[in-house]
């Protein structure tokens, strides 16, 4: 079974802090994604990566950056956290040629 883990289930940060969210997968999938989930809005894609050191902007990249130095790890960075970034963050992976995304358990981030 694919296992996707996220570094924290719950996180509370102050406005202006730099925040790192980590995602690690153990199935050698090429593709990794970061989404945020908000009530009534579903999942919105922030960034994705098709390979190591490669990244592409999704629909809502403003205020975020990502890093993929190793195939199994995809990090989401909030350079200066703001209250409107309070949300559930979901990491997902996808094997090349497949269609089914595998999701981590999510990180619920609160910015105060």
């Amino acid at each position, binding site marked *: 079974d694919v296992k*996707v883990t996220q570094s924290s*289930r719950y996180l509370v940060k102050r406005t202006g802090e730099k925040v790192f969210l980590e995602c690690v997968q153990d199935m050698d999938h090429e593709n990794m994604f970061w*989404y945020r989930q908000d009530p*009534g*809005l*579903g*999942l*919105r*894609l922030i960034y994705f990566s098709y390979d190591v050191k490669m990244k592409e902007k999704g629909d809502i990249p403003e205020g975020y950056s990502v890093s993929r130095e190793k195939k199994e790890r995809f990090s989401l960075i909030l350079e200066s956290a703001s209250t409107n970034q309070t949300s559930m963050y*979901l990491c*997902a992976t996808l094997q090349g040629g497949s*269609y*089914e*995304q*595998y*999701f*981590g*358990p*999510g990180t619920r981030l609160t910015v105060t």
Partner: protein
Amino acid sequence: AQSVAQPEDQVNVAEGNPLTVKCTYSVSGNPYLFWYVQYPNRGLQFLLKYITGDNLVKGSYGFEAEFNKSQTSFHLKKPSALVSDSALYFCAVENNNDMRFGAGTRLTVKP
């Protein structure tokens, strides 16, 4: 650009009754369609997908979905609901490596 609509925020059914969670989509070309489920405090889990072939797709936990090209719909169904089916359900469409999710429908099955 493609999009997905889940017209119902909330669906309530009694245990043992059939359930339907609705999804319509808009996409140019042939769509790849998905249903995911999210149980409380957990990530999304894949339920089923339509890529090509038979319009009726069977998935996990007794769920099925019917692809209707003329109505651009992909409704999720189950003949007999269980209380444990209570969760948040997301429809998604994928085209050219671009996946879009609906806003989600909260299903509540009452005993």
